[in-house]
């Protein structure tokens, strides 16, 4: 609690309040918090526990069970490589490996500069344009390994320009 800023505490309290008439609101609360802050650290779980009376052990159990909830913050750009079957049979594992190699991180990790997180996804339903890569929601169709460097550079350039 000590680490939680007043503004965040207020907003989280609002989210909890939003679902007070629901019989079992935990998933709803966590989804909203994840969406708002990008992660759900232990302090926040403790705070939700104080507000709802749900034991923090139970909340932690739920947060760690679902892949959408994260305990640590994600990078500014979240790269999601689809590893659905349609993408896989068209070589998306090689695309994951290439991103890994060029960024120096494994899937699930974030680069030290906080710029990129590499995730593998289970089917984004864009099977017709396999292999598909999404970056903060934007879909890149038919990504082959030789396109990977260019995609990363696109965001590095964007970042360099915004810092100017």
């Amino acid at each position: 609690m000590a680490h939680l800023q007043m503004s965040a505490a207020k907003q989280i309290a609002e989210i909890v309040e939003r679902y007070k008439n629901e019989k079992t609101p935990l998933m709803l609360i966590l989804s909203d918090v994840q969406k708002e802050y990008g992660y759900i650290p232990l302090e926040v779980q403790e705070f939700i526990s104080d507000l709802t009376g749900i034991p923090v052990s139970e909340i932690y159990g739920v947060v760690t069970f679902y892949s959408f909830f994260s305990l640590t913050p994600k990078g500014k750009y979240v790269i999601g490589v689809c590893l659905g079957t349609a993408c896989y049979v068209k070589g998306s594992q090689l695309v994951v490996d290439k991103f890994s190699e060029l960024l120096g991180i494994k899937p699930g990790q974030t680069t030290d500069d906080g710029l990129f997180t590499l995730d593998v996804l289970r089917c984004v339903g864009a099977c017709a344009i396999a292999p598909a890569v999404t970056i903060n929601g934007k879909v890149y169709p038919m990504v082959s390994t030789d396109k990977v460097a260019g995609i990363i550079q696109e965001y590095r350039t964007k970042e360099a320009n915004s810092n100017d």
Partner: protein
Amino acid sequence: MIKIKNSDELIAKVRTCATCLENKIHGTDGKKAIVVCGGTGCLSSDSAEILNRFQALINEKGVEDKVTANVVGCFGFCSQGPFVKIFPEETLYTKVKVSDCDEIFNKDVLGGEIVDRLLFIDPLSKERVKKQSEINFYRLQKRDIALRGNDLINPENIEEALGDGSFLALNKALHMTRQEVIDEILKSGLRGRGGAGFPTGRKWQFAYNVDSDEKYMICNGDEGDPGAFMDRSIIEGNPINVIEGMMIAGYAIGAKNGYFYIRAEYPVAVERLKIAIRQCEELGLLGDHILGTDFSFRCHIRLGAGAFVCGEETALLNSIEGKRGMPRPRPPFPAVKGLWGKPSVINNVETLANVPYIIREGADHYAAIGTEDSKGTKVFALGGKVNNVGLVEVPMGTTLRQLIYDIGDGIPNGKKFKAIQTGGPSGGCLTEKDLDTPIDYGSLIARGSMMGSGGAIVMDEDNCMVDVAKFYMTFICDESCGKCSPCRIGTKRCLEILEKITSGQGTMEDLHELKELANVIRTNSLCGLGQTAPNPILSTLASFEDEYIAHVVDKKCPAHVCKSLMQYYIKPEACRKCSLCSRSCPVNAISGVVGKEPYVIDQVKCIKCGTCLNSCRFGAIIRK
């Protein structure tokens, strides 16, 4: 909006809306209608901007009274998207770009002249095809049950759904007794479309028979099979149809509340469902005393959070209840003790999308479609190594050959067909010898696969079946919830053996152990996920044992996929000594002398990345 208070008002409203929709299709009001595909595939290829451009053009030219433009669900022919269709001529334009909009608008919409270059080209006759119905991909399909309205109505406008006949089935059901509704579904032969194929009517009957002050209807939209997107498209394209199906089910079993459990990965589907629910409430079609009867019903949405196991019905219940999504032992079955301990029926999205059709047209009419053991149609997400990738709805009994070659137009690049995987991580691979198998629940199981939720991934000679089994096992290991040990530990051990085999360390004992382990997992796991988890291994072992043996005995991967079993060679006689490969090699494993000595790959240093193979312009580098 004015509330619809009874059956007569509904019928009057449907009639008015039907006229509007007719006008749109046939241009009887003198207007042209532009519709743009709003499926996820097309949206990722800028279909939203295409629609914006058309709307801007309508404003610019001041032709609001002559032309309309709006979004529709999904045309299903994803490899040819984005689609633009012009009514009343029904001209279908494919692979449209934002930069094509002005030409389509000026030439066709205003000028009445077809833009030839954007028409679909028939791969056989090489002729340009003008209408959707004339394209082979659509010819064998029956897209008016589960995918009803998908490429016609605006999914964000309930009036178009009403114009297409939505809620007439609910109206009819409300004039029947609850038992009569269940009898009708039983008679139709409808079976669950989520994978297992349990008769829907029987599920409803169980819940109907239980006395309880509260019952729940749940729609399972946690479509987790990687490579399947039927449910998403159905909700995105016609959310009202699914809501109506759920309401009919709710009426039949005696539920007042319905929950949609949808994957969080499907934001468009969730948004359209929210809009549809709100519009139903505004019209009084959801709420208290629907159509002036005693039937009251409300719909709620719950989002998944990325756990495949939540597609299992009892795990899904736990997830709605705010717990870890782990399955519960059955019995008690959800129909007796489900959500919050109350009788609940959980039906898949596609199953519910079939219900209004059955009630509206009658069970006999529905049962006339399909085969003896499987009635109606099935939607498949056809993908992988097939020319026509997309969403198809075919009558049960269609053969795999028709699906792959007639609708799917065969394998690209002249490659050879190897297998089609149905049923996702729970299913199996079917091969050449199974191609004339009619698609129905029984036939697919008899051949070692299953219907599953509708993923159909085609593989060609370049796919390694051991690698495919490893892919599914990796998926299952990630997604096993960990509650029971056969699934938690067994799948991990299976994966380790597969990794051993694909890295060239496998033995014949490993193959034996793999089979044994697979059978233990199948018979001892708690839920459907574990019980079906070994299927990809067992089915590939059954059809492609020689490929496993090649990995184990010859230490070769015949499809050249498994890196550890592969070597790159430069044919000295073909090498032009240009040094390009050497310069592109990331680990300096290639040496030679420019113009003098042919280049050679150091097999110890080589990381098998394949860069040299792609860089060589003379075809001197080969994989072994």
